[in-house]
């Protein structure tokens, strides 16, 4: 199947999935009172004052199906409602908080991938030797750690004990002022990138300092996961016949491992990266909450705790779309890496 056709087909399939997702979530919101649900339809602050009017207007006391229809209509006009927490429409809130989370992801993802894959394959190449055992123990510990607890511990030690060394939040107060001042142009609102673009060293340093702990907290669980997966995948790969053939050809061990074994071992890891992404999405909520790092995860949590359903719904929708898109990319990548799989076969 041709690439373009495949992508279009997959994107089409997105529709029923989103349909189902929204139906499900909307069903949950029916458990709320009309007042709370009115929040879903509010577009600006003024409407907040006139809730009964909103309820009347959108027929929030009418039967479910009609309501779903109206809500769906709202959604299709990109009106996801109003976020109490952010004091702005949900749609804008997402864009407002996204860069912070992106920044985390930009640093965490390569870390997870590089360390996980590298350590995993190294452990496999030195099976049953001390390095292997250490890696396995570390991996299992990391996998068993409650992320939130790790975050707390890290703050306790690196912020509390080593006073103020690695603080929570995104930026310290002074830097925050700098970043919002007229001299500093926020191209992307990703602080590290902006700092580089603005050639501003202190802001860069400050942003990095604030990133260290959240990135570590976010990464640990996922690194552990990838490490273990990579290790077992490598072991399987190293046991295959073509490895013996490669050695019989006279190839150096290093080449055998890097060129022949690893390429095959990466295949299942790529498959799984979609799930890793989901894991990141989960981890982001907890991590941002603990470190008071005002990104999407933080916003989602605040919304959930305050029963701000419109925000939670918006977040869930946003996440679903992202997830489906990521899976699409992963599936395509998969066919590139494994010549045995053709597009449209799907990940088994």
């Amino acid at each position, binding site marked *: 199947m041709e690439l373009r056709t495949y992508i279009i087909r997959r994107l089409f399939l997105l529709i029923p999935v989103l349909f189902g997702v929204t139906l499900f979530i909307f069903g949950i919101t029916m458990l709320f009172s009309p007042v709370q649900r009115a929040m879903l339809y509010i577009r600006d602050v003024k409407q907040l004052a006139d809730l009964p009017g909103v309820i009347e207007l959108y027929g929030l006391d009418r039967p479910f199906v009609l309501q779903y229809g109206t809500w769906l209509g709202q959604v299709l006009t990109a009106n996801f409602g109003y976020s109490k927490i952010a004091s702005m429409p949900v749609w804008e809130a997402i864009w407002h908080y996204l860069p912070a989370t992106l920044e985390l992801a930009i640093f965490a993802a390569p870390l997870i991938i590089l360390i996980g894959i590298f350590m995993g394959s190294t452990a496999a190449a030195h099976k049953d030797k001390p390095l292997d055992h250490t890696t396995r123990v570390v991996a299992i510990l990391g996998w068993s750690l409650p992320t939130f607890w790790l975050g707390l511990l890290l703050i306790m030690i690196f912020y509390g004990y080593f006073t103020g060394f690695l603080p929570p939040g995104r930026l310290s107060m002074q830097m925050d002022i700098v970043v919002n001042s007229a001299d500093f142009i926020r191209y992307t609102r990703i602080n590290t990138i902006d700092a580089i673009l603005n050639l501003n060293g202190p802001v860069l340093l400050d942003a990095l300092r604030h990133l260290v702990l959240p990135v570590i907290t976010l990464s640990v669980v996922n690194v552990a996961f990838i490490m273990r997966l990579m290790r077992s995948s490598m072991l399987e790969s190293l046991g*295959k*016949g*073509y490895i*013996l*053939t*490669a*050695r*019989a*050809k*006279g*190839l*150096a061990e290093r080449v055998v491992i890097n060129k*022949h074994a690893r*390429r*095959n071992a990466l*295949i299942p890891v790529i498959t799984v990266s979609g799930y890793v992404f989901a894991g990141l999405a989960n981890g982001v909520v907890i991590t941002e909450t603990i470190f008071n790092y005002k990104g999407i995860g933080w916003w989602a949590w605040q919304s959930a705790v305050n029963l701000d359903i419109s925000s939670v719904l918006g977040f869930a929708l946003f996440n679903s779309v992202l997830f489906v898109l990521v899976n699409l990319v992963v599936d395509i990548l998969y066919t590139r*890496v*494994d*010549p*045995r799989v053709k597009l449209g076969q799907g990940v088994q």
Partner: protein
Amino acid sequence: MADLIRIRDLSVRFYTYEGVVHAIDDLDLDIRQGETLGIVGETGSGKTMTALSILRLIPYPGKIESGSIVLFDRDSGGELELLKLREDRMRAIRGNKISMVFQEPGAALNPVYTIGDQISEVFLLHRRQELARAAKQRVDSLLSDGSGIASVKKPFWRWQSRLFNKIADEPHAIEPRLLSHVPLLRRLLGRLRDEAGLLTVNMLKSVEIPDPARVAAEYPHELSGGMKQRAVIAMALACSPELLIADEPTTSLDVTIQAQMLELFRRIKVDKGASVLFITHNLGVAAEVCDRVAVMYAGRLCEVATVEDLFLHPSHPYTRALLEAVPMPGKELQTIPGALADALNPPPGCRFHPRCPSATPMCQQERAKLKEVSKDHMVACYLY
């Protein structure tokens, strides 16, 4: 015929959880130049391990305990003690002077690389200088030709020529090696790959693969079993080895393909003058292809003779039993009584004595040494 490989007192042991397995015990074997020697035996007889020992590829937890394997190098005329060779020199021999074909061609090929890539790999590894020389010639002639090369590109082409020159002198020269790790500049060395590709296509043609250029661009899963096996053989023959080891090369193929494969092996012997170590459990196949046949049981050599001698005058009781056991229409199926020797706890003395119709008390105590019973016919049995 002169000897190519001389194996003396080879012992290979496996240290497993459950105990020590004597995979090969004091093996003496010669492979002569230009001959096809077959090793026949049941599973666990040590045939594959013998082959792997020659290449020093015994997997963990196995170890070559003792012995010597000497290669009489045709080209340099010298003797090489393979078991004592430095690893990097051993690597220069693998795939080059001695190569191996395995039982399952599907498993032997890496599914993520094309056939062509995997065969070219051998050329790029062992024939680098040759490739570099050919590449340099091509670049030089195109340069002197003058036509069609943009003047912007000319310095790069000259750089290529210099690089190839370096590699032709010293295959592991530093500058080209460093360059091969730099992403864009790597392309300068691309010609080497192209030259290797030409040799690869020729190689595929020589093993009678139709449309070799297309096949070279295909992936293993796109080929049939027979084609895969041919490709694997092409890979093994690429550098014109002095010894080709074939471990049950026809076992996983269906009978008609088998016949073609055996024909191919016969041709190899004739065309290339290589020795072939042909491992099989199928006596019929051995009879078709081999000049001499060695029979192994439980890690030890029982008998070795020319193929006619072995089949006409089988001496060792085990050989006799094997021949008796070959199914013949009209004849009742004969089996060998008893079970295979337990690898962990082999019977003392001659390993075969519990199942041997002619066993004597001495057989239980000490194994017999190889004795010549007739010209070029050795047996390890007290009957002689």
